[in-house]
């Protein structure tokens, strides 16, 4: 009798804890796990878009089709190229952070921290609108500045000429993300214990040596973190390039700005072929998954949980 009551109390306790979790668990099953499994399934099927007829199992045909498709391969190339070009924001952020850190804590430091972070706050769409004009071929700010510096008339269509579009897209991207990079770099710089520098000073290490032998190694994990996050964000880049292309996923100009995600969008919503889109989505998933796994391993995420 007593045992049963104790059991009841125990079960009740379990249920109370589960009542905290149940909504999130159900949400994740219905909105994440099931759709993800469906993506895996669709990638092996010829999916009938309009609901006529049965979906047909086609094995790896979708993958074969997509891997032989030159515009998909190009979109993978574009995605990685743009992601790697976007890494410029890391050294830029580091240099800014070093300078800001150098002036010491105080009013100026908070002013610069906030000032340089500000572009990050501007809405994604606004940034594109602004840079479509800043990077314009005729009368754009950048070309004006370049003309002034070189003494020659410069009229590069940074966002409309397919030779330069990736540079234009990178300028726009780095402008938006360097504030974030600066912030993370600065926080990391400030967490280096001052004693290390003091000890180095006693040993007679000068500024450059301190920077090279203390600062850079201490910042390694911060750089790695920024590298991974910026690659992962780069893999899923979509909105700004989609808007630059005039709200279309073809990656204008000349397909140079079509990322994997834009390719998936094209075959999901513009000319629906869900099988192809799902195969593309699976490739995007695998790429992101591998990079995230590397990231978690590096940051010691798995170790922490064992404790």
């Amino acid at each position, binding site marked *: 009798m007593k045992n049963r009551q104790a059991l009841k109390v125990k079960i009740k306790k379990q249920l109370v804890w589960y009542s905290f979790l149940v909504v*999130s668990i159900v949400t994740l099953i219905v909105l994440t796990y099931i759709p993800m499994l469906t993506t895996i399934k669709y990638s092996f099927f010829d999916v009938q878009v309009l609901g006529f007829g049965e979906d047909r199992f086609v094995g790896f045909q979708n993958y074969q089709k997509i891997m032989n498709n030159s515009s998909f391969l190009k979109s993978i190339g574009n995605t990685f190229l743009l992601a790697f070009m976007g890494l410029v924001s890391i050294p830029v952020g580091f240099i800014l952070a070093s300078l800001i850190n150098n002036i010491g804590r105080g009013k100026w430091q908070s002013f610069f921290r906030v000032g340089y972070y500000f572009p990050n706050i501007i809405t994604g769409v606004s940034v594109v609108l602004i840079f479509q004009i800043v990077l314009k071929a005729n009368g754009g700010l950048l070309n004006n500045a370049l003309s002034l510096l070189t003494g020659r008339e410069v009229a590069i269509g940074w966002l409309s000429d397919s030779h330069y579009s990736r540079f234009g897209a990178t300028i726009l991207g780095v402008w938006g993300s360097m504030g974030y990079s600066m912030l993370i770099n600065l926080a990391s710089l400030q967490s280096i214990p001052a004693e290390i520098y003091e000890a180095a000073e006693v040993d007679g290490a000068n500024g450059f040596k301190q920077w090279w032998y203390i600062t850079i190694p201490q910042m390694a994990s911060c750089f790695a973190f920024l590298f991974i996050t910026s690659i992962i964000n780069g893999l899923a880049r979509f909105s700004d390039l989609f808007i630059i292309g*005039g709200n279309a996923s073809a990656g204008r100009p000349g397909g140079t700005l079509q990322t994997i995600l834009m390719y998936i969008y094209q075959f999901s919503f513009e000319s629906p072929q869900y099988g192809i889109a799902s195969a593309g989505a699976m490739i995007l998933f695998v790429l992101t998954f591998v990079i995230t796994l590397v990231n978690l391993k590096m940051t010691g995420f798995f170790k922490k*949980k064992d404790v």
Partner: protein
Amino acid sequence: MRAKKIRRCIIIVVLLLILAIVLVPLLWCIVLSFDRKAVSALPEFSLIPHEFSIFNYQVAFTTIPLVRYYLNTIFVTVVHTVLAVFFALMCGYAFAKGRFIGKNFWFVFMLAVMMIPFESRMVPLYLQYKSWGLLDTYAPLLMGACAYVYGIFFSRQNIEAIPDSLRESAYIDGASEWRIFFQIIIPLSKPLIATLSILQVLSNWNSYLWPLVVLRSSEKQLISVGVSVFNAQQDAIYYGPRMAVAVISAIPLSIMFLFLQKYIVQSVAVSGIKQ
């Protein structure tokens, strides 16, 4: 000492110059938005409008339902943030202090989601909502908020740091877990709530792809998509009105940033390091 001071001054000047270059596009955008001359041709760069007027804003407000977009976006952002933070705290509390069967399993179950990018399950998700007849409503934008995985992870870390003694004394007084959650955990988690809310507002205001996919009717659209559609229609010309729209859509977050700059900068820095 003197050399150090001079060096500091030089660095400040250099930083000011770079900052000016970085912010010039924004300044020019604001100037153009007030310039009557910037309609069909792009005027020369200047620090003040060539011909001051609010014409561009009038054009912007009459060509697209900006106020409508605004209200829609505010509604979605607020509801999404409240749902996401509330459920994240609930799960965070259970994972931090609870003792129940399957705790580790469910924790990994939730964190694994971080490795599934939203984009790779977008199509089936879209078809699911389609079959439920929920396309062109705000349900697809809001339902996902009930499982804010990063927030759960972050809440667990923070709630773990709250001493158990508080909970135990409440226990002795006969309080249930839910009461402890509402009366002890939530009041003690204000900084945590602030950080998560800020991160939520920032990401929601800028969300683009998903609203573009699920919302069809233009009067339901959010500001980011609404503005980009307007932009695509006005390809090439209409510089002033386009800049006016850019300013309008950037204003809410900018104002929020000016008031909460310290907290926002901190939230972003903290979330980055602990991630």
